[in-house]
């Protein structure tokens, strides 16, 4: 079990209400996978857009090169393979 200090932010799954911690050195995809939730990825570098997930609340920290600047600014989707969160909790459409 990770110490709380290593947790950078949390993702909340809107459909089940589950909250999953994302560690500093872990991608959101890896964090979800560690909790049995498999997100389809291809490039895992924020390029291809395979993993894009809708964001329902919170502010993502975009690191991808797939979404346009306008799409990133609207903060309603993100690439969980590389992007992170500016808010403590990111509510995602899972």
């Amino acid at each position, binding site marked *: 079990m990770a110490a709380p200090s290593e947790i950078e932010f949390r993702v909340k799954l809107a459909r089940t209400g589950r909250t999953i911690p994302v560690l500093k050195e872990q991608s959101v995809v890896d964090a979800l996978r560690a909790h049995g939730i498999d997100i389809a990825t*291809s*490039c895992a*570098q*924020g*390029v*291809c*857009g395979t993993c894009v997930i809708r964001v329902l609340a919170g502010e993502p920290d975009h690191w991808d*090169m*797939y979404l*346009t600047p306008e799409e990133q600014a609207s903060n309603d989707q993100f690439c969980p393979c590389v992007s992170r969160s500016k808010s403590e909790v990111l509510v995602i459409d899972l």
Partner: protein
Amino acid sequence: MVFAYMGPMERMPALPLFDFLEDVPDGEEVAADDTSIGSGGDAVVPCSWLHALDNVCDPFHVPILHGLISGLQFTDVLSGMPACEFASTQRGVKVVQERERSDGTTFRRVTEAMLPNIRLVPSPRPTTFDACNKVGWIVPIDDTNHRIFTLARVPKGGIPAELYRQTFEERGWHKLSEAEHQRMPGDFEAQVSQGPIALHSEEHLATSDRGIVMLRRKLREQLTELAQGRDPVNTVIGSAEVRISVEAGKFLIGSAS
């Protein structure tokens, strides 16, 4: 070259007029070519037309395929790794590739993919710096065959295929044996060997593939537009003509030290 429109008269789109084909300098003329300039091989290319369109937005295959893998197929000015910017434009995707030269100048090469199937790629062969002077339509014959039709500005009497077709150790593709095609693969081998229709699910895209991803997204968006009954981008109805100011070309930035 003949363009045919076979839809209802009131929906006839304007023919795009490319500035570099309209403003032709003295001593030059516009010539048509049906040998698939840019395919790097046969006139009829046995794979999906989308492979050829991907090529326009993939600047890194130039130094890798045409420089490292197969020996120098273009000019040495294109053999270095470029710094690239990928941009969405009103008509498609633009790729700006810059290479610093030893004399302090910067070589800028701009390629454009204009939706749905137009390639604006400055010739990689001559070393002169100028705006792009040819435009190619990547025309699907069916799902797994295509052919590129080109309009190019040439010196009077010039033949585009002789001026702009890729060579391998100074020979054309048709003069090479199969073993030589394997030893010196070009665009034709790279695109056809992916199979008749490349499976995107089997790709391993990386950050260098950003232009290709942008292009595919834009194409998919246009399919949605069409499905919803709207006109796709680059279709202008109700106007006699549309002028296209091309950004593609090869430019030298700065002055030599």
